[in-house]
């Protein structure tokens, strides 16, 4: 079948289902069995989506007609899938075991991937054994990650999620993240930290990111001032550079032995599996980090090998396609019912919106369908007190992703286990009410309620149920979303691996910095910019 006929069939199905409420679909007792899918401990339940098993089959046909099978092979095989930058996107190679092979331009990248992991392991062992010494000879006990975007969100999210998997040796090390270019996070932190025992990790793929280098310069000066030593000595003992541009890092002053490298073919938002994950290894040890990679690798193999009609990333992607392109839903809420996943929504916002927030197709033409929706989210129980009102009674249709582990606190107090049960109960209850609305109630009781107490229901949701949250299952979860994003990009025929949209603003900022420093207003600026610059110039030097 051609793509066009697949789309036509889907539009037909959408039309015939448009008046069917989720409560009617859920009346089918076999629905859960038909529409929930499992791989290696991860359950994806799609039975609260507004489609039927037949529609899902049509969606699978669309994926086939869109060349997804070849697309997956191209991605994992190291083809230049990022055509605007002429490079591969090989985050899957970063978690390929040592005995695997991935060729890029005829060269196997796995040996260098493994070499970087080995170097990470050496540095982590030095840190964890208390033998990384600062300028005074004291052991480093604080690590500050300076990075932004992919060099910040991934490690931050994973470190927060996996805090309890800290091995004893890692407990002596305190970890901080600094990203904002205005120095507001850094200045507060520096006033509390001991320069003699603080190590900075500069994470920047290009090693030209102004946000990161501005913070790094401040940190370096802080250490030079505190130690009275030369910059070169400070850089040798207090800085690690993680980059794909070793020359730039060397130029900045990071000695080679303190450089951890990754490659042009690692996208920033796909980089937590690379040396960028160094802070994760600081927190959970290399064994834990390797578990994270193993979990992701398990999902990679599943993505590449499983039939689409039971392929978790593909099914999650197709569900999105249905909601966005056929049901016209353009908001996606990410709702983890586990406080450890607090940073997951922000992470997925970047992963999905920076990847698929595109409107030009691979062939250079404008897309004729909608692409990435607006994603946002929050820890579910907290969001219940914030924006769930809109989900239940607002005018917007929203698709929700519920994410929750089954077991938690298994070796801790019964009170904490009870608290997790409470979260789980809320998760299940919210998904039920969003789907059924008043149909969850006794019909008479529902009909008697005043209009402002009525629930429309019919909001579709997916449920991702993990057995428990571990480094391995987090690896699976993140890889699940990465491949979902890629699948959608293949169907929309867009490039998920570039981000040209963020470049112009950076360039303009450089110009603007000149204008601010010289208090000079370029008459080429628009009137709004001119007006603001003038006011800043007039009032800026008042104290």
């Amino acid at each position, binding site marked *: 079948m051609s793509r066009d006929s697949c789309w036509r069939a889907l539009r037909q199905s959408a039309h015939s289902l448009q008046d069917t409420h989720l409560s009617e679909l859920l009346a089918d007792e076999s629905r859960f069995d038909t529409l929930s899918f499992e791989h290696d401990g991860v359950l994806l339940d799609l039975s609260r989506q507004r489609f039927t098993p037949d529609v899902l089959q049509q969606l699978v046909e669309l994926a086939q007609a869109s060349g997804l099978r070849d697309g997956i092979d191209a991605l994992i095989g190291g083809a230049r899938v990022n055509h605007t930058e002429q490079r591969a996107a090989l985050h899957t190679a970063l978690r390929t075991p040592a005995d695997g092979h991935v060729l890029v331009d005829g060269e196997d990248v796995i040996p260098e991937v493994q070499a970087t992991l080995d170097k990470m392991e050496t540095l982590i062992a030095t840190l964890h054994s208390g*033998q990384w010494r600062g300028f005074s000879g004291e052991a480093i006990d604080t690590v500050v990650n300076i990075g932004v975007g992919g060099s910040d969100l991934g490690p931050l999210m994973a470190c927060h999620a996996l805090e309890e998997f800290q091995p004893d040796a890692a407990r002596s090390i305190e970890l901080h993240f600094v990203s904002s270019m205005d120095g507001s996070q850094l200045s507060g932190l520096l006033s509390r930290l001991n320069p003699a025992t603080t190590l900075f990790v500069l994470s920047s793929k290009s090693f030209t990111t102004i946000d990161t280098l501005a913070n790094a310069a401040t940190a370096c000066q802080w250490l030079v001032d505190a130690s009275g030593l030369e910059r070169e000595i400070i850089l040798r003992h207090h800085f690690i550079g993680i980059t794909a541009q070793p020359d730039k890092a060397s130029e900045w002053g990071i000695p080679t032995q303190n450089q951890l490298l990754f490659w042009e073919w690692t996208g920033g938002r796909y980089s937590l599996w690379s040396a960028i994950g160094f802070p994760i290894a600081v927190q959970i040890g290399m064994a834990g980090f390797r578990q994270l990679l193993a979990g992701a690798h398990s999902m990679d193999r599943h993505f590449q090998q499983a039939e689409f009609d039971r392929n978790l990333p593909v099914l999650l992607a197709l569900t999105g396609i249905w909601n966005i392109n056929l049901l016209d839903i353009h908001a996606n809420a990410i709702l983890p019912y586990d406080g450890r996943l607090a940073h997951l929504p922000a992470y997925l916002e970047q992963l999905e919106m920076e990847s698929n927030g595109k409107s030009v197709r691979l062939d250079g033409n404008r897309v004729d369908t909608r692409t990435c929706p607006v994603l946002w989210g929050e820890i579910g129980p907290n969001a219940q007190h914030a924006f769930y009102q809109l989900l239940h009674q607002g005018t917007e249709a929203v698709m929700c992703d519920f994410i929750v582990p089954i077991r938690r606190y298994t070796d801790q107090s019964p009170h904490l286990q009870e608290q997790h049960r409470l979260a789980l109960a809320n998760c299940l209850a919210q998904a039920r009410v969003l789907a059924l609305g008043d149909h969850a109630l006794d019909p008479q009781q529902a009909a008697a309620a005043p209009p402002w107490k009525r629930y429309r229901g019919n909001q579709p949701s997916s449920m991702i149920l993990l057995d428990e949250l571990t480094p391995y299952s987090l690896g699976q979860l993140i890889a699940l979303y990465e491949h979902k994003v890629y699948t959608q990009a293949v169907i929309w025929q867009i490039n998920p691996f570039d981000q040209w949209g963020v470049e112009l603003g950076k360039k303009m900022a450089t110009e603007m910095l000149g204008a601010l420093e010289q208090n000079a207003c370029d008459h080429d600026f628009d009137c709004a910019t001119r007006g603001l610059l003038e006011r800043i110039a007039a009032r800026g030097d008042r104290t």
Partner: protein
Amino acid sequence: MKISIWGEELAGWIACAQLATFGNEIIKAGSALTPMQSSIRAEPGLLDRLQQAIDSGRMVDADLADPYSADVHWLAVAPGELDSASEIVARIAASGRRNVLVVSQSNLGTGASDALQARLDTALGQHLVYLPDMLQGGQAMRQFAHPDVLLLGCEDEAARVGVTALLRPFTREGTEIRLMSRREAEFTKFAITGMLALRLGYINELAMLADHVGVDIETVRDGMSTDPRVGPHYLSPGCGFGGHHFTQYIEGLAGLLSQTRGSRLLETVLEQNEHHKELPFRKLWQHYHCELRDKRIAIWGLAFKPGVATVESAPSLRIVDALLAQGATVQLHDPEAQQEFRAIYGEQPQLVYCDAPYDAVDGADALLLLTAWPDYWSPNYTELHRLMREPVIVDGRNVYDPQLLHDLGFTYYGVGRNSH
């Protein structure tokens, strides 16, 4: 009286020697008839007196006499050996012997003596008293023979009479016996040990400060000790205290304080002590501008204190680890503890074990003195200077004279002596 003496602590050996002198029959249980540890062997007067007791037949080992046939048991086991103490006491109880007195001098923590008493059979007149070990190395024989005061944890009149009679030869000069409960006596011992640790922690903190304000801590310490309220004891700055027993004992007290009172006082002392153990490394690191790769570093003294062959919790362990991690080669010497150290570290390309102190300094870029063995106090400086590649001395125990070393052309770092 027939007395069985258990354990290898100093207090036990002193009790053997002193009690045997006054006609008691001593059975030294669970060990050889003379101490192994050199610091105990070095105790003035001890070995001679033990030999006399052995020669006269008043002291025999457990092969010649059944230790459970004794009327009195003297327990001087190490802290942390509560299990073996319990076993001994259980066997005493099981013997069914009447009117047995157990004198415990073991630092097993508050409540341990009550727990041991509970295993005895009071109906048979089996009682345990706790007599805190207050002996100081170097003066122990005299202190045992002529105590000014004895603290006695005892809750039974018959036991009090028994122990008083046993100690009468030593208390005739009007020794005051302070009677208290076993638990109070244990706590008093605990409190004294904690106080000593605080003094050491305090003087070491002051030493750090002295480096910053440009005074010699040794001069300051000398001045401090002229105040009778302060006195001279436990005020020697150095690169940290070690020794399994002392540290373990303080840890017990620190844990108790922090769990029940939320007090970090002693925990802080312990943390600072760990930090202090690496002080010689830090001085060296700074001297060589944070680069020790391929440097050759001599270490004199591995034992946690002079007179012992053990390296448990010794500063040498942390310093050698740090030097190895930085890629330095370490040349080691210790008159007694080398064997134990070698058992832990084995043979490594970066470690050179030396039989003579001067072998260790050959070609060295620095000498770190970590244990104040008498052998190291007055070296041949000319030879030292000639052998070393760089004449840098880090004196972790402040045994050398800074001015002299300076005049001889050495770069000298002590603890709290930056003023030189």
